[in-house]
């Protein structure tokens, strides 16, 4: 009984997501390509963009819905890769590569690593029990309208696509001039995390 209900809820949720996406696509995106009633074929870059965006959404859905925790990690990988690709479309080359390095090289590998350190990982069929489906739906109901409102109502600044310009030097300059204080505060936070990690690891050793 409970199982059927959660399955139904899951499918309903998925259908809602797809409907939202399609609705957004048809009302907001398609009109740009149909300026005077004549269909303009999408360019190569557009196709790649939509492929990346779709992969990001699909990956994110995979993280949430996969019953297998390693598959969730793969979904996260796809979502992060897609995000990096979207950064490239925004001419943010440094940010894209930093996304790859930090999130895939660091965070994702550590997550996979941590997952594999868990108990009974020797068995392949470890499942990711999607607990609290009801709670998840509640959170979704609370957050989704807000996100949609923001997406639709905020007057996003639109720039015509320009040639890719190197951003690395500018990012560096900004970090060390305008945004020096936040930058340093962030590093202090990271330092505190590092020290905290060391302290926690030491405590465990002492307990042994």
């Amino acid at each position, binding site marked *: 009984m409970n199982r059927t209900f959660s399955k139904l809820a899951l499918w309903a949720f998925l259908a809602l997501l797809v409907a939202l996406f399609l609705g957004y696509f048809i009302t907001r995106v398609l009109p740009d390509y149909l300026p005077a009633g004549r269909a303009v*074929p999408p360019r190569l870059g557009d196709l790649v963009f939509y492929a990346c965006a779709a992969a990001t959404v699909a990956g994110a859905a995979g993280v949430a819905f996969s019953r297998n925790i390693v598959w969730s990690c793969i979904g996260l990988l796809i979502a992060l890769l897609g995000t990096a690709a979207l950064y490239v479309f925004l001419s943010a*080359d440094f940010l894209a*590569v930093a996304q790859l*390095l930090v999130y895939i*090289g660091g965070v994702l590998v550590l997550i*996979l*690593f941590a997952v594999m350190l868990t108990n009974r990982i*020797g068995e*392949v069929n470890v499942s990711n029990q999607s607990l609290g489906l009801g709670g998840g739906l509640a959170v979704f109901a609370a957050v989704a309208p807000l996100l949609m409102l923001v997406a639709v109502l905020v007057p996003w600044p639109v720039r015509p696509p320009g040639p890719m310009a190197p951003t690395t030097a500018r990012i560096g300059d900004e970090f060390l001039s305008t945004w020096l204080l936040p930058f340093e505060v962030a590093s202090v936070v990271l330092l505190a995390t590092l020290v905290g990690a060391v302290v926690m690891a030491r405590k465990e050793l002492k307990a042994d």
Partner: protein
Amino acid sequence: MAPYQPKSDPKWLVALTLAVALTVPFLFPVLILLSMPLAEPSGGGVTLALRWLGNVLGTDLSGPVAHDVGTAVVLLLIAFLFINFGAIFSGICVWWERRIAGRMQSRIGPNRQGLGGFLVWVADAVKFLLKEDLVPAEADSLLFRIAPYFVLTGFALTFVVLPFGHSVVMADLNVGVFYITSVTALVVVGILISGWSSNSKWALFGGMRSAAQVVSYEIPAGLAVFVPVLMAGSLSMQDIIRAQGAAPWDWFIFRNPAALVAFFVLFTSQLAEANRTPFDLPEAESELVAGYLSEYSGFRFALFFMSEFGNIWVMSALATTLFFGGWQVPGMPAAAISALKGTGAWWGWQLVSMAVFAVKTLLLANVVIWLRWTLPRIRIDQMMTLSWKYLVPIGFVCLIFTLFWQLGVGAAPGLELASGVALSVGALFVVIAFFRRVFKNVTDVRGDAIDLSNW
């Protein structure tokens, strides 16, 4: 009974084999060089090609759709060439490594298929293709199947920014070095997934060891990479090479004492990231059977091996770019080559620069191979200690020293030249002393003279 006399091929046949072995992989960069004009960022090459094709076919191919399709075809062609360079280089590298191992271990090595056994890598590849693609019954079959492609992708993506010559580079990204260190992360993901999905304890151990190793050594590698980046003031691979010169005292490795140290930090870390001896813990045969490769067979196993041996090129080429002056041709500055653009001489200098780069890279690749057949394997706690307690602090010291060094160079530009000359002369002496020592050791044990008889 007469002692066994190995079959001896004439010297010219040996030379011919070696020449072919060295040339075959580099046919691909030459083809890439030829297709470079098509891939110019502005798309001019594609437009011209389409116009020509349209004239031949008698249709108008100037529309945006045709242009997009043309661009995609050109990009696919170049990607195809690069991947084939990686595949064929790793194939030939397997053969070369086996021959070197044979000589180092006083045995013969593969010598049947073709001259000097040169075709053995083709035979290996065919064998891999024909073998059964075995998936263990209890494995997560889909992940097990896709894991090799993660590894292959991580490996192939590095070729996007790796230079081959003065103008032979797929894309000179302005975050090139940063890009290389980040895409190799996909290799780790692939190895971790293969280790887990095999549903074998040995494979799981191998995957865990590999992840721990790569995550640890990415940090010293990153720190060491920043030394030449600081010296060149750019993250672009080509800019870093242009900031160096052709002569040894113009190379970054000698222009700054910290860069000399940083090179060894980088080289060690790269060995660890490529799972090469003495850091071959993830596939340690005597401990973990074959680590994450335990359950793989057939073509998927070949994919792992292709990226592993192809990584020898990647790591050597990266070190050559960052520290050894890349493709800089002696007596011909980079700007002078650029000025020749459009003439026949430009093509010639491109080839010369590619040859210079290849020779440097292959020398480093030989060091990698030589280490593998000499050193034992280190233990996992020693591997961690080496990274976190030695290489990371050394990397930080190098980085900070370089910052001050660059300030010093700004004040006294002669500093770099002085350091370059002093360190390169010192390196020369070390190399001479090394060869004298090797010669003495060989004569001490009345070892065999250098001969090519077992070819």
